[in-house]
Structure formats: C-alpha cells, structure tokens
C-alpha cells in the first residue's frame, strides 16, 4: 500500500514531507485536503490531525502528523543506509544534528514563515503589509542568518560534515523568501548562498518545490 500524505500541495509542511519521500525514493499518494475550502477543519480530518493543520500521513495503517517527525520516521523506516539522520549509536553526531534541527525550528522557522506571510501571502490576498512587523522580522532573520554564515564558514552543513534533515527542513521557507519574495538574505551571504545553492538544486527538492 502506498504511503499516503493527506495534504495541500503548495503547503510548506506538505512539501517538506514530499521532499523527504523523494529523497528516499518512497512513492506516495497525495490525498488533497483543501485549505481554501476549510477541509483541514472538517470533523473527519480532525480525527486524523486534532490540531487541524496539514499534513497527516497513513503508512499502511500507521498514522501520524507533524512534518519534521514524519520526515524522521521516513528515514528510520525506509532510509536504510541514509545519512539524513545520524546513526543513533553516534551520540555526538546525533547531538549536533539535534542542535541543528532545534536551531531551524526555534530560530529560523517562525520569522521566516511570518515574513513570507507578510511579503507574499498577504499581497496575494489583497491584504496590506504590516511594514513595522516586516522591519522587525527582517532584523531578526538577518541576525540569525549572520550566525548561519559564521557556522557554514567552518563546516559544509548545519549539523557538521554531512547533509542531514536539519539542512533540508529549511528549503520551503528559504525557497519562498529567495525566489518568491526576492529577498537577498541568502545571496548576500557567501557561505549561506553556497549551502542554499547545493541543497536547493537537489533533484528531490526540484521535484516538489512548487507543489507536492
């Protein structure tokens, strides 16, 4: 039975899961849950995902949600030999991976996501930008990416010497901010630019970047 993703093709988190499926060559069936139609808040969907957000997955009867945990599960189940998550027996490499994953979720995801909302989503819906909020978000994200620039000067990837999920998790927002919002957050920083160029040119991301 194919791996089922209940999601909305353009959604960040749905694309994050689809990306890892592609990386691991796990075929999937995307079952559409329409956000514009409010299907993510329907009682049948809430049974699957009690917080009413996409995506949720069904792997031959095993159900779960939250895009980053799904990605970890995919690697654990289907990624034999994959280095996208370090071997748990290597406690130090795992700790550095967890530090990088935490940095993405704690430092990057929130300002990046809200900036995308302000600069791309709101104009699309004919809503006015909040200029003050944009200034604050840009200042925050720039200060975080200054740290990334320093870290990526010393090592090729955020977790160390090997590409991991910690790097890939950044792709949906970085793609949106760089290519849709046309910000120079990435291009103005040589090491971040090098890292982004590499991770964004991976065939798995190219396959899902505009829709899972």
């Amino acid at each position, binding site marked *: 039975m194919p791996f089922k993703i209940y999601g909305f093709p353009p959604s960040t988190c749905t694309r994050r899961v689809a990306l890892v499926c592609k990386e691991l060559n796990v075929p999937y069936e995307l079952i559409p849950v329409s956000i514009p139609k409010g299907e993510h808040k329907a009682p049948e969907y*809430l049974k699957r995902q*009690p*917080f*009413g957000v996409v995506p949720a997955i069904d792997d031959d009867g*095993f159900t*779960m*949600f*939250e895009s*980053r*945990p*799904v990605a*970890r*599960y995919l690697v*654990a*189940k289907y990624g034999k030999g994959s280095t996208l998550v370090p071997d*748990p027996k290597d*406690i*130090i490499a*795992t*700790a*550095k991976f*967890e*530090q990088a*994953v*935490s*940095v993405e*979720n*704690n*430092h990057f995801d*929130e300002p990046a996501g809200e900036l995308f909302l302000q600069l791309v989503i709101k104009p699309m819906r004919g809503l006015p930008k909040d200029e003050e909020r944009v200034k604050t978000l840009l200042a925050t994200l720039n200060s*975080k990416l200054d*740290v990334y620039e*320093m*870290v990526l000067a010393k090592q090729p990837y955020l977790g160390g010497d090997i590409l991991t999920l910690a790097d890939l998790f950044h792709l949906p927002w970085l793609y949106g901010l760089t290519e849709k919002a046309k910000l120079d957050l990435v291009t103005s920083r040589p090491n971040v630019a090098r890292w982004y160029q590499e991770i964004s040119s991976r065939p798995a991301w190219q396959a899902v970047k505009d829709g899972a």
Partner: protein
Amino acid sequence: MTILKLYGDPIATCTRRVATVLYEAKVPFELIFVDRVNNAHKTPEYLEKQPFGQIPYIDDDGFILFETRAICRYIAAKYPECKLIPTDLKKNALFEQAASIELNDFDFFAAPTVYEVRSKPRRGLQTDQAVIDANLAALDKKLDGYNAMLGKQKYLAGDEITLADLFHLPHAPILEVHAKSDIMVRKPNVARWYKDLLTRPSWLAYEG
C-alpha cells in the same frame, strides 16, 4: 571525567528545562551562573560557545552543546536507562510527533506569554496585556487538540512519559502562577496530565 557543567541562570526557564532532565536521568551537574544583566552572554568568549548569545549551554567533559531540547535529547541518549525517548520505530515516531507538538503548538504561544508576565516585570519593562490575551486564546484552541489526544492515552506520546511531556514543565506552571490563567486545568484530560507532571520528583527537586 569532569562533572557536566550547565551554563545558565537558575531562574531562567530554559535552564530549568535542562536541569529537570538532568535530575530525571540522575546526572550530577554543576550550574555555572551566566550574568545576563551584565551581558555575560554576549561576550566574544561566550559567543564562541553559543553563537546566538542565549542561555543555556553545556560543557560535558569538553563537548559543547546548546539548544535546550537538543541538550535534553543528548542526556536521554547518553543515559538510556532513564527511558525518556522510546527506541521502537513507531513509539519513537509518536514521541517525535509529541515533541514537535510541544514546540510548535504549545511553546510557540506559551513562551511569549511567559516573557510578558515574568521576564518583563523582572527587567522593569511594561507588560503588554494584548499579547498575553492573544497568545492564551490561541493556546486554548491548541489545547483542544491536546485534550483529544490525552483522552486516549496517558501522556503526549503514548502511555509512558517521555521528554516531550517534560518539555512543557518550565512554561506551563508559569501560565497558572504568573499569568493567573486556568488554561492548563480548563479541559479535563489536559488537567489530569498537567497535574501528574507537577508531581514528578525531578520537577519538585529543583529549587532554582
């Protein structure tokens, strides 16, 4: 082997999150105070260890690590007898799901509330009630999701306690005590789970 050093502040919630897990895992540690009032966390020497200029970080016999949840996971991995992260494929996936819920659905709203009701007054800054109200309203909706899940299982990842439950501890009681909100006890399954967490010896032991 030298004793694990936790660089932080006893009153800070993130430091307490790590200390609670160190107690659970029965790992002796030394807490080294970082004086944020005097910007000790922004010096070049500090930034070498924690480049975001935040507390805490650990030095475990020369191994430096920051991000509280990464530190807690490292402790749980190094001392697996504390059984705070399941290893079975599906149980581990549900643990990761719970840990993601804690960060993205709970702390996303709890952390800014804690900043308003506890950190700002300590620093002589003005609390913004509108921010508190908006975050608590959003958190209340998320706790409906918690209530549904905790109606079917004892803890957030299943029937056994994991790091994902413990991660809630520093911020959840502050909502009760400092924000004077009954948000953690309004829904029956959430209340049961929350009160259980508050009885953990590791939570009670830490006086910091």
